[in-house]
């Protein structure tokens, strides 16, 4: 329960953080610390250098830029929950943040750390997929933007490049005819999801113009249930179709067995969470 020796460095700016990442071999950025420090305490990770980015103001905060919400990577879960911009324009993020961990973790844990950490149990990667978010990354070669879709490659594996830092997440504001849904099953407060499913649906009258169904903790990384989406896209969604989609959700899952359940349970729970989220999203979209 005591980490191995490491050196602590405080970064003063994004540039400084990138420079320090280059200067110290095998260094790690320290955001909220609620994924990194437990791993260090268990000595699963023993980074010799930590670069603390908590002092970098430009990484914090939520602002509205036209139809886009820009969220600083260092924004905490609690700040997401309390944000009026998100409450009004992106209820999915507020819902998801509310169900992350417990109050202590939410006070320090950041959306950026949650997105890039790579634990399939983290909630925000699937939320980013469902929202069709864009990631803004800064590295030694400057800025690049990349869609969330395609960013998550496996457990502790994503498209974050060496010495790169996630700066901002961009998500679209919710519009008329769009609905969000989020359901998560967990064993208790402070636990990761047995399964969770964020859903965003866009209706055109009764017809589903588009839908994104994402899944948490039922595969090596956050995934989209694309076959399930295909069943619903372009149709007037009813319970029978939702049942069909649920079957596709089960097929999309490849969960690892652990104390939360075996593959059968987890994929069934993913289907049930997706079902509930689809219903909730439809209800919101219908206004």
């Amino acid at each position, binding site marked *: *329960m005591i980490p191995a*020796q490491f050196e602590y460095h405080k970064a003063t700016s994004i540039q400084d953080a990138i420079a320090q990442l280059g200067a110290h071999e095998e260094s790690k950025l320290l955001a909220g610390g609620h994924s990194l420090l437990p791993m260090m305490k268990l000595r699963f990770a023993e980074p010799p250098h930590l670069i603390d980015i908590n002092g970098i103001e430009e990484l914090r905060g939520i602002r509205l830029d036209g139809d886009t919400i820009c969220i600083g990577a260092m924004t905490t879960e609690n700040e997401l929950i309390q944000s009026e911009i998100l409450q009004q324009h992106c209820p999915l993020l507020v819902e998801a943040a509310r169900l992350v961990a417990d109050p202590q973790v939410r006070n320090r844990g950041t959306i950026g750390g949650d997105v890039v950490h790579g634990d399939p149990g983290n909630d925000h990667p699937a939320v980013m997929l469902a929202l069709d978010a864009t990631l803004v990354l800064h590295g030694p070669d400057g800025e690049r933007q990349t869609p969330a879709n395609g960013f998550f490659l496996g457990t502790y594996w994503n498209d974050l490049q060496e010495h790169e830092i996630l700066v901002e997440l961009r998500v679209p504001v919710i519009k008329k005819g769009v609905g969000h849904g989020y359901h998560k099953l967990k064993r208790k*407060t402070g636990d990761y999801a047995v399964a969770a499913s964020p859903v965003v649906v866009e209706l055109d009258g009764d017809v589903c113009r588009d839908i994104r169904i994402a899944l948490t903790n039922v595969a090596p990384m956050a995934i989209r249930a694309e076959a399930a989406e295909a069943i619903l896209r372009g149709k007037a969604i009813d319970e029978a179709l939702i049942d069909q989609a649920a079957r596709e959700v089960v097929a999309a899952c490849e969960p690892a067995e652990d104390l939360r359940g075996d593959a059968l*349970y987890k994929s069934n729970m993913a289907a*049930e969470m997706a079902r509930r989220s689809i219903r909730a999203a439809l209800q919101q979209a219908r206004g």
Partner: protein
Amino acid sequence: MDNPTEQQDREDTLKGVGCSRRRKEDARFVQGTGRYTDDIKLPGMLFADMVRSPYAHARIKSINKEKALALPGVHAVLTADDLKPLNLHWMPTLAGDVQAVLADEKVHFQYQEVAVVIADDRYIAADATELVEVEYEELEVLVDPHRAMDADAPILREDLVGKMDGAHSVRVHDNHIFNWQAGEKDATDRVFEQAEVTVKQDMYYPRVHPCPMETCGCVASYDKINEHLTVHLTSQAPHVVRTVVSMLSGIPESRVRIVSPDIGGGFGNKVGIYPGYVVSIVASIVLGVPVKWVEDRMENISTTAFARDYHMTGEIAADSEGRIKALRVNVLADHGAFDACADPSKFPAGLMHICTGSYDIPVAHLNVDGVYTNKAPGGVAYRCSFRVTEAVYVIERTIDVLAQKLGIDKAEIRRRNFVKVEQFPYKTCLGWELDSGDYHTALEKVLNAVDYESLRREQQEKRAQGELMGIGLCTFTEIVGAGPSRNCDILGVGMFDSAEIRVHPTGSIIARMGTITQGQGHQTTYAQIIASELGISSDDISIEEGDTDTAPYGLGTYGSRSTPVGGAATAVAARKIRAKAQKIAAHLLEVSENDIEWDIDRFKVKGVPGQEKTMKEVAWAAYNNVPEGMEPGLEAVDYYDPPNFTYPFGIYLCVVDIDKSTGETSVRRFYALDDCGTRINPMIIEGQIHGGLTEGFAVAMGQEMPFDEQGNLLGNTLMDYFVPTFVETPHWETDYTVTPSPHHPLGAKGVAESPHVGSIPCFTSAIVDAFSHLDVTHMNMPHSAYRVWQKVHELGLDSPV
């Protein structure tokens, strides 16, 4: 003339028995000024940390300390070989077995202590443990206790090979610890052969851990000049620890001081004597400086004293009306690698033979076999009295199964079998004497309070709609307050307890007991007992426990024994003081002792209003004006050896709704009626019941210590191990009846464990009840959503995907 309001006022200012006095302890706890073992910092103190085995069963081929010793700040690395010359590499357990202090040639369970590092601070110590190089040769692992006595099972305890005379019985296999039986086997079997109806149910009571908020730890400090050892440690039984430490170390008991400071919950986890304590003491003696050892959470869950792990079969023979004719219980007990259960010496299965419960059962037989497996030792009473939880579980589950088989309502079958009020004191066929009870009255009270009939009707409607609703019932009898020294001892010391009370000249009081509070509120309630007995306000009474240099010898606090035994000692000691005080009062009032009567807080001359002396006045006189021939002072000690256990009981009812699509259970209602005899502090009782119900909920719904085939413990952090927060915890409704114990000086019985003991089978009863129309008779704990869903799925009740 007596003035009732004036009397009431005097009574109220005492804050004595029956008063919901605020807890004296809370001011310091809520302000963060409690003083726990880890708060103790002594000059020059070093830290101990353990090198632990990654394997459940392996031979140690070599241990290389060089690199660890080379790390700056490391003072010593000790292994079994270093303890051997002191003969401390093994130590006796409370159960008549021995236990490795540090693994001697072999490791027997994952996380077993292999070496200890002593360093300047805990950070260096942690780094150094990684530098100790241990070479292992893996051995075949025994995880399943059902395999333990197979001919080809790997033998665990090489030190015991061929020693077939165990501490409690002949051993029939090298992995066998004991066989223990109670009751009449042949007579029971005969009833079963002829019975109109029989039922049989297998059930597993999982291995769980008490998981107190504060983990175990100690600070050992040996003073070489004065040859005096002081150990602060998290112990529920500091006096017993002193005796054991003296016996092991050879230091006279008079030069060993054990102090239990504030304790952050014990629940049985802090009864045992652990390797960490022993090596800290050895290290302090060898190095001549204080040494601290404190477990982290994973070490706590993995190594120090688990509870339960009973594989049980309950069988009932009955007539067609559901009247029980005989009970048969078989247990396979998984004790782990060393038998370190904490039970009275004569009872290797604790008080398991209370398993006839609240029922009038003519004949019964209990058979328990204990076996070794490659798991951590323990088997403590987790918020209960020595295996009572297991006993209550098996009888309550099996009677439910009988009700189901006969189609008789659960409440009705209990009515038919309860020991009747006029039968008390009631001798059970397994040898206990239930002191008092009124089960029928309590049951009806609960059924009326929840409107049982309409709940059953609602359940019918829900079932018709395909919904799962369950009603659980548990009507339990506990056995607490161990115990009469004729049949209860720990390492040969009788299980009495003690109180010493001193009344100061100005009428305030200090009292010390052999018990030790860990959250029960002794500072508050013991003072109330003395207040009522002596007429001094409890606010003027200080209670101290836990320091063996000052407190009288006692066996400690576990098994709900503080009020039944320590509380009785307190009342009796106070009565000794009052008897002396009465003589002094008579002397002061110049009348005969017989002309004096006691009135709340004073002595009065019978029939002469105004002629009176308050206890305060008498206290003053005790130090300057006593009758001739009487020694001055006003104090007393009592060592109380209880004539019997006490038998609190309760009626619990639980209503659950189960979500078929996720398996989640929502506890809609939990109604707990407890009868603990005389109620000393109703608020504290309520608090203890809430705590016990919550812990019972935790056990029933989530706690487990699962092992894989290699003996790896799969869930030893609080991410997996279920400790409920307010979010998960149901709303509790509490109620009570009062049936005093006839043999306890106050009529009090003990209460804090009843809610744990009684709620667990009640939850199982409710969950199973939700499926009982589908011929389900039992489901093993924990009733997590995952496991409940598996049943839903197996029965095809979930929505198809």
